């Protein structure tokens, strides 16, 4: 159980790292939100699962944390994206594929 839990912690950390890498590599804010939200949500859930295996007594709290995260994380991302869209931030297009000619 301890080994499996530790393994899940590492996998969770790896996903969070990928999320951070995505923030750095993506060309615009919408794509960054995509990379950040997905990777960090799964990374956090995996970490919580790992902690639940190592400390079985904590599972009710971890379940509550996980559930709230699953609801609030995507809402937060959507709201930030919506604010950007309303503020007039255009999504990035791959230049050669763009028919309207804006970079």
């Amino acid at each position, binding site marked *: 159980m301890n080994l499996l839990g530790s393994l899940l912690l590492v996998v969770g950390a790896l996903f969070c790292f990928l999320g951070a890498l995505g923030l750095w590599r993506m060309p615009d804010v919408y794509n960054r939100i995509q990379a950040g939200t*997905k990777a960090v*949500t799964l990374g956090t859930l995996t970490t919580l699962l790992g902690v639940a295996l190592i400390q079985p007594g904590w599972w009710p709290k971890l379940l509550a944390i996980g559930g709230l995260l699953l609801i609030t994380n995507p809402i937060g991302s959507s709201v930030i994206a919506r604010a950007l869209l309303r503020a007039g931030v255009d999504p990035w297009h791959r230049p050669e594929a763009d028919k309207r000619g804006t970079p």
Partner: protein
Amino acid sequence: MTPHSHSAAPTTATTLTALLVALLLWLLLTGSLDGQELFIGLLVAVVTVLLARRRSALFDGIIWSSQLPGAVLLYLGYFLRALVHANLDMARRILSPALPIRPALVQVRTELTSPLGRLLLANSITLTPGTLTVEVEDALLTIHWIDVPPDTDIDAATRAICADFERYLRGFVR
């Protein structure tokens, strides 16, 4: 995304649902079935629900039936699979040197009518492969799609993203 669109006074069933959710959260957080803890928890839950009375209309969207638990489990199973798939997909894009993305904004109309149903659909889309809900206006969802393949029927492809989730969600929300 628009909690005020249902401004009618919440029904008894809705209030009870909100009470149950608050109580369940208390149980999970305290992790104890001790009588005194439960009593305080009930008190806190009642006060919370009374304070948030107008907001609890969100729970109107639930369709109560004997199939509810099964439908929720089916949805969760499908959702978690999609979440893992989304992450592997995103990892591939992030790690690939060529950064294979062709993002665009697309729009899709949902058949779910309740704020709760639309909230769950929008959240599901945000956490699944390559899509991010940017705006929900009534039944119209605007989605940022990270990789729109060229020469595809965008409308049909977008419908396909939504349709699976809608099918699972309609088992328990309006």
